């Protein structure tokens, strides 16, 4: 990689700067928590209960986000090494190892400030078994109380009344009492409803942004750019005024790009002509994020839809948080997260993306250390290929372990995939003629 190029400041649009400031402010607030006395809960992105936490004035800390932020800042290699030294094997989820290594190194967050110890470990279990093991380790370390929310898997591809009741009962009998105890406040349903109403508003705008990729050219990259767009709503801001303002502004910014007929903006500037429209399944690699994105952008490949931007909530199927049924809506939200969907539902979603976004095909980034995502991916690839008639591609990398990002190999496969699409188009054109 050209170091000089890499050091060039990344190009950002105004929404991205705003988003960055919001997240930085949250980290500073966390860092000051021991002085201000604010209480915090460690919790996960999929099935997060941010509105509920906010209604108790509890601050969320999201270990996966810390891990990916550490990776983007080049710190994950050392953190992972520390965790491996402590006995965690090479096959363990690298988010976990990165988080444990960070903890071991003084729990210094991505902005360079120390993160507070948890007052509550809110374990929302949505499809990833590792989450339980992760918090078992944190419980040993911090001696903090654990509130577990067991979210039933959508094995049959639907949410039944008994599943909903099962989650609501846990919220009412386990989670809310735990939050009351830690925060010293009583459950305030009116406040929760206000939060949820704001969530729904922001979710409307988020969906409009994601669906803007139906335009040609797409004004956004719904994977690499998408991770910035989902940042606030997947982390600490769902239900907040800041989130409402951010998504309003973001939507306006994107609508302006559509009006001007512009493609996405990448860290290296405006993208050239759109040549390929791709749907991507699986999380991105974070250690070489910019280089990874460049491999797409340089070939004129835009990601028009991705499953990863649905891990913290699926909204483009019509789901919105509904303030009139506060606990039920939270239960439905948790059960509807992408990783909690069964494989046929995931296939349906990806097929719909390929068709509705008029994509050239599905590309899977298979993550070495993530069983939750990787299981079934080859089956999904074949299914989507068969049902759409569009070619599939398969690459492999990892979340935050730089040792698993082989640039030459990934570039080789990506270029082959794009050329394969090109060839297929030429073949179709020739037969049509």
């Amino acid at each position: 990689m050209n170091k000089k190029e890499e050091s060039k400041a990344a190009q950002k649009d105004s929404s991205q700067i705003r988003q960055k400031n919001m997240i930085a402010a949250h980290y500073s607030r966390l860092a000051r928590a021991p002085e201000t006395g604010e209480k915090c809960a460690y919790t996960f992105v999929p099935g997060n209960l941010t509105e509920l936490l906010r209604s108790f004035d509890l601050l969320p800390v999201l270990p996966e986000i810390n891990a990916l932020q550490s990776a983007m800042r080049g710190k994950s290699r050392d953190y992972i090494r520390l965790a491996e030294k402590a006995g965690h094997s090479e096959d363990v989820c690298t988010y976990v190892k990165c988080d444990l290594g960070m903890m071991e190194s003084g729990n210094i967050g991505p902005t360079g400030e120390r993160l507070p110890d948890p007052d509550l470990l809110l374990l929302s279990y949505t499809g990833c078994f590792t989450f339980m093991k992760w918090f078992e380790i944190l419980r040993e370390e911090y001696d903090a109380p654990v509130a577990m929310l067991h979210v039933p898997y959508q094995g049959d591809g639907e949410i039944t009344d008994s599943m909903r009741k099962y989650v609501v009962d846990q919220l009412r009998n386990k989670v809310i009492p735990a939050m009351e105890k830690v925060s010293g406040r009583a459950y305030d349903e009116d406040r929760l409803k206000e939060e949820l109403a704001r969530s729904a508003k922001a979710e409307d705008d988020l969906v409009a942004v994601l669906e803007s990729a139906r335009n040609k050219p797409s004004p956004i990259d719904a994977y690499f750019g998408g991770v910035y767009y989902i940042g606030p709503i997947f982390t600490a801001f769902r239900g907040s005024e800041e989130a409402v303002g951010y998504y309003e502004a973001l939507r306006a910014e994107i609508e302006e790009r559509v009006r001007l007929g512009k493609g996405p903006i990448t860290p290296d500037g405006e993208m050239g002509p759109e040549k390929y429209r791709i749907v991507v399944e699986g999380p991105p690699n974070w250690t070489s994020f910019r280089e990874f994105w460049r491999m797409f952008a340089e070939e004129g490949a835009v990601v028009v839809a991705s499953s990863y931007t649905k891990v913290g909530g699926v909204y483009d199927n019509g789901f919105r948080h509904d303030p009139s049924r506060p606990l039920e809506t939270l239960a439905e939200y948790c059960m509807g997260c992408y990783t909690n969907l069964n494989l046929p539902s995931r296939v349906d979603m990806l097929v719909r993306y390929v068709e509705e976004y008029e994509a050239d095909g599905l590309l899977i980034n298979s993550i070495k250390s993530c069983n939750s995502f990787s299981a079934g991916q080859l089956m999904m690839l074949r299914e989507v290929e068969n049902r759409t008639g569009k070619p599939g591609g398969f690459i492999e990398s990892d979340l935050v372990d730089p040792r698993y990002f082989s640039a030459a190999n990934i570039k080789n496969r990506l270029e082959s995939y794009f050329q394969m699409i090109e060839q297929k188009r030429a073949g179709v054109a020739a037969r049509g003629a």
Partner: protein
Amino acid sequence: MTSLRYFVGIDLGSTTTKSVVLDEEGRILGRGITNSRSNYEVACEVASGEALIDARFGLIERDLKGRGVGEEECGRLLKALELRFREKQYRAQLDNLCVTIRKILDERKEDPAVVLAADTVLSTMNEEVSELYAEGSSRKSDFFRDLAGSRYLSLAESEARGRGVPYDLLVGLYDKAILEVENMPAAEDAFAAHASAALADLEGAPEALGDAIAAVRELEMIEGGSVGTGYGRQTLPFPKESIRSEILCHGLGAHAMFPGTRTVLDIGGQDTKAIQVDENGIVTSFQMNDRCAAGCGRYLGYIADEMNLGLHELGPLACESNRPVKINSTCTVFAGAELRERLSLGEKREDILAGLHRAIILRAMSLLARSGGIEDEFTFTGGVAKNEAAVNALRELVRENYGDKTINISPDSIYTGALGAALFCWRDHRRTRAA
């Protein structure tokens, strides 16, 4: 006919660089191969140069037949001519080696004993050339580096001992010089010069051969375009629009060799590819090994080094096995340790080798399964396809897992990628012309 337009495909691999030259009808004119070296540009130049030489030999043959020379006679004449031609080529490179080594000796103001030792080695090598290229002789490699290297090292060893000169110093001299020699492009008129000299050596050659050589020598060869592919693609010395993915090239190349091909397995030096193609040779799906090169050709290279064998000797030895050892790991890094452990357990070399070959193919079978399985017909390409033990293991595992399938292996399979690249080049040209 005074000029001929041709199209070049080049496959820059980790071990060898291959080139295929097509004529305007998309027919193969010639093939060339050389060892990949530090300078990619030269490697590509040499490979294409070799393919053009091969093309010219083909044209000479065509011309001879046009002059009424019979098939058998034609073959005999060409074989004799090519042998003499290769000798001239070798001599020219040996001259370059001598000049280069002497230049290095001068620059270093080397001890007279060392100079004398090096001179003796080189003049002996010069004397041996005729023997090396004698009628009926066989050579272990076609690459100057290997041929000259093996003679130089063995002569240097006895010279060093006899004269009390450090052997390492003589070896270092060769290693330095060969890099320079390899990267010297051949002279512009090398074909004409070598062909004429070769003809002069052939006693009693019919007049027709001289006429055919003259006609081909006068033929102006015009490059219509080139497309490159291969492992070193990021650094290929071609403009971006002339670079094609090796996966697509292998798919198209295999289709051109065997039009019924639906599944392709390519095991090269550093990667293994499983490719599915449609009835037009268009790739529909592929899988390849990730950053780990376990089970690729390089693995066999390490095993050969570890056993002190030549790469080409592994397969035949493995074929002697009656009781293959079961081996699971094909980790290239641990290859040596695995081998030594097996030997220390008293396993026979051929049984271990048979097990290793099977392990490589098992890994390839997993990639094939992931790419969508094996469809009829199945074409096996890459350097490992030349290895009989690997092919046997493959046949067995294909039958076990997919039943009876037609398995194609071409003697020219090493040129599959280059052929695909050349076809892409030729197609591009045709499309532009049509438009």
